[in-house]
Every structure is written in C-alpha cells, then in structure tokens.
C-alpha cells in the first residue's frame, strides 16, 4: 500500500506529493485558495472539481453539496482528505490568486519573515518560518488601487494627471498593513524579522511614495527605483520595532523588483547555460541571460492574454472557455465550472487559434477563411477577426522581445536551456499550442511553468544577506526596445503564425 499520494492541480499543472489523510485544505491553502466560511462547508467558496481519482467523500459531504446546489463532480476542499492519487481543477475561483509553494534551498535562520508580492491587480503575501522554510500563513487580496484603473499606465495617469498619487499610496499601504496584521494575528502574534516586498516599477513608486512623473512619458526612466527601507511605524504597522521592511529595487524602466525576484527564483545569475524568464502579463516582461550577463525588457504585450479587448473575452473564471481541443473532426471546449459558456479566457483563445490553424479555418496571416469573419465555438461564444488580430499583436510583441534580447546576447534558440513562464496566465496555458501560435518558439519540454516567481524570489531573498540581489543588479541591463530600429520588421514577422 502506498502511504503517499499525488495531488495534481489543474490547470496549474502542479503536482504535490502528500501523506495519506492530508486535509485538502492544507494542500490548497498555499496556492491562495481561500476558505471564506472558515472551513465549515457552508459557503462553497473552496469548491474544486474532481477530474480524475477522488478524495474522501461521505454522506455529510454529499448533503453539503446538495445544499449548495452543486453536482457530485464537485468537492469542498475544506471537507476533503487525500485518500489516493487525484487530479483537481482549481481554476474556477473568481478571486483566484497565484501564491507559491515551490520548494527551494535555504539556510535555516531564527525567526519569521514575510514575503509580499504587490501586483497591479492582486496582492499576495506569505509568512515563512525561517528555520524550516515552511509557509505558515497566506493572505491574498485584490489591489484596492484597481478602482482607479486596471493597468499601470492608467495608475500613472491617475497619479500624475489627476493628482491621485497620495490616494494610491494611502490605499495600498492600508491594504498592506491589514494583510500583514492578519498574517501575524493568525500565526499567534509573532514578530517578523523582515518583510520583503516586490512589485513592478509603478507599484514600487506608489508604495514608496516616489514621484511617478518620469514614468508618464519617454524615456520612462526613473531616478528613484532603488531599494526602499521602512520602519513598521512609517507604514502604520503594529509590530515589533525591529522588523526591517524593504521594497526591493527595480531593474529599469517598467521592469520592476517582481522580475528581479523572478531572476533570483530561476537561478539565472548563477547558471552557466542561458535561461529565459517570461512574464506573460499585460506588460510582458522578458529576461534573457546567464551568470555572465542578463538583459531585461518589457514588451507591452497588451491585455489580450487576460481576455481584455477580446470580443467575448473574460478572466479565467466560471463560464470561461479555458481550453479547446480537437479530436478527429470534432472541436471540444472545456468550460470552467462545466457551466454554460459565457466567454473565453486567454488560455482558451490560444488553444482555439492553434486548433483552427490546424484545421485551416485561420490562415498563417491570421485571416479567418470565408465571409462570416467569425468562428463559433459554442452556440454562445465565438471569435471575431479582431480577436485574432489582438492576439497577433500580443504574441508578436512577446516573441519579438525574446528574439531581440536573445540575439543581442548572441545566443541561438538551441543555446537556451530553459524558458521559465511566470504569472497567473502562464500557469494555465497549453505549451504545445503556445509554440504552435509562435508565442514561445521553444520545445515544450524546455518550457517550465513556474507560477508566481515574484513571490518565490521574495521568499528566497528573506534568507539572503543581499549579495545575490547585488550580483543580479550588477549583471542586469535594461534594454529599451522602442529605440531598436529593427523592432517593426521583427514584430511584423512574429505576428505571422
């Protein structure tokens, strides 16, 4: 008899090995799954879908599902224990935020540390026991600044053109304090030794209260991107005075300390072989390099991967077509939550285009064959010609950025050992299709979905004395793609499928 089983988390593609009888709650907690009712089984907020195998399932569990009007393909994570190998889908959470549970090497130390990933959209923090390296608490939240614009440029606009900088700083610091207080309270009131915060350049400036004006127009270079230290008092934290709070420095222009942390997480600065790190978000940050030299850039991919600007696009939540496959002549769609399709999210869009390129419905220039100018996926959901154009812009920008950085360093595609994909969206994509559409032109076995590398790197830096960060900063150069005269031609080539 096996006493350990594998929990397979889809669509993250993560495998976790746990002892028999482990509460599912413990497994999912570190992935940012929330338990709104505190694990009583009454809110259904932690529901997961069983794709293969099963977890413990008893009469009580069954009646809870019935009360919640959920069919029996669902399980409530808070009521479940691991009893065998199982594959679960956890993509249906409306507030799904990517935390991180990757193992990493560390030097055990005394006390506790907190890693904080301050994203444009979401905020996630973990409390770490520095002796064991274990995550003992997680808090997630939506960035309250989002009410003043979804992307970094609209935050800059609000801060600079509408005089909203102080408001944005206050909002984010308040949320930060609330989350830290909760983490500490739930852990029984411990006093952290340090808190490491990472985020993109705009988040850095807004958190640290630095003037964003230089980030509003060319050359988008800020003189104030360095590390910022705070005392707990300055941030309104009711914690021990000795806690050192640091926002890690940015790498240049729009490439922030979330990417710095990502470089740390991939081990790029120590690797002999060249590596690539890609964050497939709206800003499309790209890093290429090895222990000799590292280049980074942002390619401004746009929000297509997040489903924005797509006619029936939506985030990866219930009702979204999250994958599309073809068997023989039939096209199959997978809908998150197995409900009626309401729209399509980024991963579904990539799959759909890959599939229709195969069937010939879309040609290599991106044109939909025939006169209708649309492709029906389900009776409700269809793709338009413009959706495909949006995807071409986004994938063309990312592919061009990678190509330019790689070529600048003199590496051929074969020289690259691994491509690490970070970010929430990156965790959901089908790698073969990513290659088929020419987004990441590398063999699938070289591509590694790494999840939240910003949080992982921030966590790793809790154990560091700063040498590794200094080493990365010294080796890394930001490349400004807008001054590259070949961008247009490379971009055009990379827009083709």
């Amino acid at each position, binding site marked *: 008899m096996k006493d350990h089983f594998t929990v397979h988390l889809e669509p993250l593609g993560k495998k976790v090995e746990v002892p028999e009888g482990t509460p599912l709650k413990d497994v999912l907690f570190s992935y940012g799954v929330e338990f709104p009712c505190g694990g009583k089984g009454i809110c259904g907020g932690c529901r997961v879908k069983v794709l293969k195998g099963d977890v413990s399932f008893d009469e009580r569990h069954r009646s809870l599902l019935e009360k919640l009007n959920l069919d029996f393909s669902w399980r409530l994570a808070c009521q479940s224990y691991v009893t065998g190998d199982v594959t679960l889908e956890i993509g249906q959470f409306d507030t799904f935020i990517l935390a991180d549970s990757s193992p990493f090497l560390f030097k055990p130390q005394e006390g506790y540390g907190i890693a904080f990933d301050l994203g444009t959209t979401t905020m996630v923090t973990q409390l770490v026991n520095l002796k064991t390296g274990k995550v003992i608490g997680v808090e997630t939240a939506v960035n309250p600044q989002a009410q003043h614009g979804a992307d970094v440029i609209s935050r800059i606009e609000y801060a600079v053109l509408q005089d909203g900088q102080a408001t944005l700083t206050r909002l984010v610091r308040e949320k930060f304090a609330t989350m830290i207080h909760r983490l500490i309270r739930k852990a029984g009131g411990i006093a952290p030794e340090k808190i490491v915060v990472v985020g993109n350049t705009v988040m850095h400036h807004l958190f640290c209260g630095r003037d964003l004006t230089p980030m509003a127009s*060319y050359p988008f270079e800020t003189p104030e991107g360095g590390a910022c230290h705070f005392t707990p008092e300055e941030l309104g934290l009711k914690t021990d005075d000795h806690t050192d709070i640091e926002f890690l420095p940015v790498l240049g222009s729009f490439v922030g300390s979330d990417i710095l942390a990502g470089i740390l997480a991939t081990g790029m600065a120590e690797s002999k072989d060249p590596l690539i790190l890609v964050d497939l978000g709206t800003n499309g940050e790209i890093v290429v390099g090895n222990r000799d030299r590292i280049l980074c850039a942002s390619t401004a991919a746009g929000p297509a991967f997040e489903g924005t600007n797509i006619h029936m696009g939506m985030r990866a939540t219930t009702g979204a077509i999250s994958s599309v496959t073809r068997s023989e002549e039939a096209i199959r769609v997978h809908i998150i939550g197995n409900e009626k399709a309401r729209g399509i999210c980024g991963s579904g869009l990539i799959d759909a285009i890959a599939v229709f390129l195969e069937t010939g419905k879309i040609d290599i220039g991106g044109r939909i064959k025939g006169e209708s100018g649309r492709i029906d996926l389900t009776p409700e959901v269809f793709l338009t010609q413009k959706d495909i154009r949006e995807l071409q812009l986004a994938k063309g920008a990312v592919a061009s950025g990678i190509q330019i950085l790689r070529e600048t360093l003199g590496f051929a595609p074969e020289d690259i050992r691994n491509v690490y994909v970070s970010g929430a969206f990156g965790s959901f994509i089908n790698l073969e299709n990513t290659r088929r559409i020419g987004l990441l032109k590398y063999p699938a076995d070289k591509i590694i979905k790494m999840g939240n590398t910003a949080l992982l790197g921030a966590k790793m830096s809790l154990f560091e004395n700063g040498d590794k960060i200094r080493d990365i900063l010294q080796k890394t150069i930001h490349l400004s793609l807008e001054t590259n005269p070949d961008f247009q031609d490379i971009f055009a080539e990379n827009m083709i499928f």
Partner: protein
Amino acid sequence: MVDILEKLTIVVKRGKADKNSPYPPDLKGQDGADELTAEALKMGFTPDEVLQKALVKGMHLIGEDFSAGRAFVPEMLMAAKAMKAAMKHIEPFFKSGSVKQKGTVIMGTVQGDLHDIGKNLVAMMIEGAGWKVVDLGSDTSFEKFLAALEEYPDAIVGMSALLTTTMVNMKGITEKIKEVSPKTIVMVGGAPLSQDFCTQIGADFYSPDPQGATEYLDALVKSA
C-alpha cells in the same frame, strides 16, 4: 498592354517588392514592383499613369483589406515595401515636376511617445495615395512640427499617439499650431483616441485607421 499595370497593382497589393524577395511564397521568382515599374515606364506609360493606375490602386486595395480585417500589419508593411521599391523609379519625376503629388502631409508620433508602427503605416498609405509625406519620426515636439510647417506652409499635420499619458500632449501641440497657423489642418489618430477626444483638443479630423485618413485627405483635394 494594360496588363502590366494590373500586374503591378497586384504585386503592390500582395507585397512583392522585387524578383529576389521571398515574400509572398507563391510569387517566388516572379517579377516584383521594382521590375514591373521599370518595365512599365520603358513601355511608355507615363510616371503619372504608373502611379495612379497601379501603385495608388494597389495601396488602396490593401488598405481596404486592412480596414475589413482581411489583411493585417505584416501584409501592410510588405505592400508598403513593394510600393517603396516602385517609388524609386517614380521619385525623380516628382523632383522634375512632371508628376504632381496631391499635397504634403507632415506626420509624427507625438512628444513622449515612441510607438511609431501605426504612424508608419498611415504615412505609407498616405504616400501610397499620392501625397508627399514628411515623416518626423517619434517623440515629436511642437517645435519640430513648426519647423516642418515653415518649410511646407500648406501642409496638413498628422499626429499619432499610442499611450493614454502622451495623447494629452496632442492638445498643446494642436493649440500652438492653430495659434501660429490657424488655417493648418490637424489630423489625429492612434489606438487610445476617439472622435470625442479629437473634438475636445480642437483637432480637425480623427480616423481609427489609415483608410479613413486617406479618404479624408482625398476629399480635401476634391473640395478645394
């Protein structure tokens, strides 16, 4: 005889610059815009006929496909390259005055912004519609527009912006242009813009795509 102009129209639209260019794959080894233009002129077609009946027509067709979503940026850029290859043969006649252009358009991406691909496409289309284009590149300040206007006082000014933080710079530039030269027509475009924004900043015309811009310009010539 008309055959060669039709052929030229097609290679411009399909983006076949010259015989050696590998694009598009199905026209490999065939004559491109470069060879066909030279040949048409040698056959006795006037430069103006070549321009109007082949080049402008080819660019117009690709512009229509682009507007309808049938073609996209790569195809447009290839068509523009083919047009450029043809223009090499026509340009000497502009200088000698035997071919007249419809007028001059000064184009630039606005100050603070370096997104120039959209602006380039529009510039190519306008040139392909028979206008002289003075392209000031990206990050264009009022001073640069003014200097160009001094050289071409009758020119129309076209501005592009891709950032919501830089499109606001169009307002100041438009106001200053109108101050020093009230008769100058200012045309604006770029992904984050709208008709409302255009009206707000006092510009004369907004187009969401290149086709709209060339049609507007052509209408100006007709009404003049």
